[in-house]
């Protein structure tokens, strides 16, 4: 690392070598990227193997990965390639036609469906593939056991006035300042959207000034190390360093723990379906994969990765109607 001030600031003749080197590198990189892109678009190197590309929700990436691995064992002729990046990113990829499936932790918006339909020639089909309960986490040193949706709205909502733990009736060592540290997610993650809607509906927003962390895991990580913190994340992300609160729909009603049973019978108030959307009409291979995901084998993996499997009450695979509306 031999920096030299002149080389960087002024365009000396002696600086040319460096600039050229960089420019050459940049061009080489561009070419490499372009070539790689072309190859990927045609479905990988081995033509005999069917490739199913899927991308999307950060919440679902562990699950999708587990499905892909298991599916490769059952159907070696099909390779499922998973990438994360977020629901929005996945939907953008679907609209651009670079993926076959998108894992989504929220429903597609009408204008997204419209764009995807235009690109694929047919509306994306919606499959519910599992459920996720959003658990409310606090630090282990926090004596609080349960909380109501209204109290959560008071903490997180735009016009909420709860910012001290004593307002919720608890004081505890380790958090002498009494201040509630709100941990949230970046404002365009599917998790954030769902949490906001569950607390406040669509008319109000979450209060600014929360710590908007980047990733479901980080939320739990930070709460585990911060006595004053409260936050929300998928129930699959619980660790030994945090405590999950029971949540009541209304103050006074019984508070419900985020468990598989309570999510399946709809008693836990902040749970949401997880979706997979197809790129237009799915091919036979994609359809087989989706059927497998919704089968007992696929749903067992849902439970193993910390999410909530489907029940008989869940809607059957979409014929495109559900998605198109």
């Amino acid at each position, binding site marked *: 690392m031999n920096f030299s001030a002149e080389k960087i600031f002024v365009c000396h003749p002696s600086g040319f070598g460096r600039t050229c080197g960089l420019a050459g590198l940049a061009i080489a990189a561009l070419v490499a990227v372009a070539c790689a892109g072309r190859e990927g678009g045609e479905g990988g190197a081995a033509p005999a193997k069917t490739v199913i590309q899927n991308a999307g929700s950060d919440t679902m990436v562990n699950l999708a990965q587990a499905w892909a691995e298991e599916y490769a064992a059952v159907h070696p002729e099909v390779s499922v390639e998973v990438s994360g990046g977020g629901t*929005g990113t996945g939907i*953008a990829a679907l609209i651009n036609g670079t993926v076959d499936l998108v894992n989504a932790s929220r429903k597609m918006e009408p204008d997204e469906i419209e764009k995807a339909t235009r690109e694929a020639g047919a509306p994306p089909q919606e499959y519910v593939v599992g459920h996720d309960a959003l658990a409310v986490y606090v630090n282990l040193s926090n004596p609080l056991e349960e909380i109501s949706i209204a109290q959560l709205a008071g903490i997180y909502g735009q016009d909420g006035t709860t910012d001290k733990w004593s307002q919720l009736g608890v004081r505890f060592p380790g958090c002498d300042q009494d201040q509630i540290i709100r941990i949230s997610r970046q404002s365009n993650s599917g998790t954030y959207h769902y949490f906001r809607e569950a607390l406040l509906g669509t008319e109000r927003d979450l209060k600014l000034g929360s710590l908007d962390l980047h990733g479901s895991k*980080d939320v739990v990580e930070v709460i585990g190390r911060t006595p004053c913190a409260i936050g929300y994340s998928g129930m699959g992300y619980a660790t030994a360093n945090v405590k999950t609160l029971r949540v009541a729909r209304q103050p006074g009603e019984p508070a419900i723990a985020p468990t598989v049973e309570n999510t399946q019978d709809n008693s836990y108030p902040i749970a949401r379906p997880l979706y997979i959307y197809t790129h237009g009409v799915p091919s036979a291979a994609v359809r087989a994969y989706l059927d497998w995901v919704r089968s007992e084998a696929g749903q067992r993996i849902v439970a193993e990765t910390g999410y909530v499997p489907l029940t008989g009450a869940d809607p059957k695979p979409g014929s495109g109607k559900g998605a198109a509306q």
Partner: protein
Amino acid sequence: MNWRRLESRVEPVTELVIRLCGISAILFVFGIFFFVFREGAGFLFGGLDIVRFFTSTSWYPTSVSNKQYGALALIAGTGAVTVLAMVIAVPFGLGTAIFISEFCSPRVKETLKIVIELLAAIPSVVWGFIGLTVMNQLIIRLFDAPIGLTVLNAGIILALMSEPIIVSIGEDALKAVPDSYREAALALGATRWQVIYRVLLPAAKSGLLAAVLLGVGRAIGETMAVLMATGHAVQIPTSLLDSARTLTATIAAELGEAPVHSDHYQVLFIVGVLLFMITFVVNLAADLIVKGIQKKTS
């Protein structure tokens, strides 16, 4: 004879290639600026309230009922973190540069340089992780603060990240001062301190300033580490123990999930243009100051 003819043909070609290389750097910079600007231009000229963008702290890009794009808190966050990083890094960085170039034995010098270069080689996501875990708890314990993901946390991490740049360039600048200056000063009976303070620092002024400003550029542009260490909270920090959010981290966190060509997507590119202009002004200022100093001293 043949060789000579060949050479005379090759030479103009080589010259052309080198010329193209030189121009390509300019083309790349303008190309990048043009692309970033174009992506945001539609919203910049049609819809974005620029006054509110610079004066409001309400950053609600994904609200359903009331979208607002006020970037003041983000600008304040970038400013606060960068200033703190420089307050820490400049004295330490320049001190280290002086120590390495003037005081230490060759062996210590080699070791120090290697260690400092190692510091520069730590990936920013690792710094961010240290901020998120180790520093967070340390700050909570030491300052009895409710949260450790703060301006202080990010400032210290950015200081450590920009210090290697300041040290390397600063040391180069000091090394470039001819030994005859030192000898002349010593011959006049100057103490070591006087040599440094009265002779070396003024002589190496432009290089040292360049070192500091490159450090500033590093601090403003850093993304991953500040995304993790600041707490990423939209508010104007009023103390070192407040969380904050920077311009760069906002782009990194939100661009991935913003629908392409939506207002939110475009406003993030406008934030990019703003960052581009800030770094441009810093570099231009550095250039002008350095030139000004050169003129004065010559």
